[in-house]
C-alpha cells in the first residue's frame, strides 16, 4: 500500500512537475490605498533542488513592472534596494515578509481589492517561469 501511495506521489510530481525547482507557499500581496501605485508581494520559497535557485524578476497583468527587492537598514533608517535576484539556497527556504525581502510591484493599473487573486509570473533560474496566484490581503497573515 505504501508503495502504491508513494508511486502515486512520484507519478503525480512527474506528471505535474515542471522543470522549475521552486515551490511557493502562501503568496500574498499587500492591499494598498487607492492612490498608491506600488505594492509588494510576499511568499515563502522552497528550493526542491540541490543547487541554489534565483528569482530574477517577473511580470503581472495588474501592474507595469515586477522586481525583486531587499529592505536595507542604514543607521536605523529602513529603505529599499533593487537587486538582480533573490537567492534560495539548495534545499532551503526563504520567506519574504514586510520589512524584509519582497517582490516589488510597480505601477498598479487599478487598485487591488482585498480577497482578489493576483496572477504573478516569476522568472526562476534555473527553471524558467512559474505562475502563482497571490492573494490580496489588508494585513500580514500571522
Amino acid at each position, binding site marked *: 500500500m505504501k508503495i502504491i501511495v508513494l508511486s502515486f506521489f512520484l507519478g503525480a510530481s512527474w506528471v505535474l512537475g515542471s522543470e522549475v525547482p521552486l515551490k511557493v507557499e502562501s503568496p500574498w500581496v499587500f492591499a*494598498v*490605498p487607492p492612490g*498608491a501605485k*506600488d505594492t509588494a508581494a510576499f511568499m515563502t520559497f522552497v528550493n526542491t533542488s540541490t543547487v541554489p535557485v534565483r528569482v530574477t524578476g517577473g511580470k503581472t497583468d495588474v501592474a507595469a513592472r515586477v522586481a525583486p527587492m531587499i*529592505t536595507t537598514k542604514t543607521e536605523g533608517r*529602513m529603505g529599499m534596494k533593487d537587486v538582480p535576484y533573490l537567492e534560495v539556497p539548495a534545499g532551503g527556504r526563504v520567506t519574504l515578509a*514586510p*520589512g524584509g525581502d519582497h517582490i516589488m510591484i510597480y505601477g498598479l493599473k487599478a487598485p487591488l481589492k482585498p480577497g482578489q487573486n493576483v496572477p504573478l509570473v516569476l522568472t526562476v533560474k534555473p527553471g524558467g517561469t512559474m505562475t502563482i496566484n497571490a492573494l490580496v490581503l489588508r494585513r500580514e497573515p500571522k
Partner: protein
Amino acid sequence: MSVPPWKKFAFPVFLLLLIALGIAGARLAMRDPQAHAHSAVEQLLFKPVEAFNFQLTDHNGQPVELKQFRGKTVFFAFGFTHCPSICPATLSHFTAIKEALPADVRDKVQFLFISVDPQRDSLERLKDYVTFYDPAFLGLTGDATALLGTAYKFKASYTKEKPEANDPQIYNVDHTADAYLIGPDGRWMMSYPFEELPKAQSIAGDIAKVATRSER
C-alpha cells in the same frame, strides 16, 4: 621531576571555578522570569520624559500640535505614502493594535502617521492613504523644516534617495520606522522598533496602561 602541589591542583580548581561561574551566570539569567515578562513600559513609567511639542498640519488642512492631544494617548510613526512595504505594514499593525485595545480605551487613543515626503504627499493623498487603514487615523505633514525638527525631537531620521534618472518624482525615502507612545499627560513613554510592531496584544496592553494611568 616533582610538580609543586599548587600546580597539581591549579587546573581542577580552575575548572571548578569555571563551572561555578557558569552556574551563577545561568541562575542570574533565569532569575525570576516573571520580572522579565513584565513589559518594559512599567519600568519606564517611573521616568518618562516630557515629549517635545511639534507643529504640523493634519490631513484636513488644520494646524496641529502634539500638545493639543493632551488627555489622549498618542501612538505614531513616520513614513510616506509611496512606501510599498514598511508603511503598509506599520499602518496595518496600527489597525491590529487598535483592535486589541479594550473598547473603553480605544477612543482615548489617537493614531498618527507623519509623512516625511511633503513633495509628493498632498494632504488629500495623505488623507486617502491613512484613512484607508482606519477612518480615525490622522495623517500629518509639514514643510521640510517642521518635519526635520519633529523627527529630530524623537531621534527619528529620514533621507530622500536619489530619484530615477527619467523621473524626478520616483524616489524612495529611507526612514526610521519606530512607533512612539505619548501618554495623555504629554510624556513620551515608549518607542517600539518596527520589528516589535506585530506584537499587537502586548503593545495594546502598554497603551491601555498608559491611557488609564493618568485617570488615577
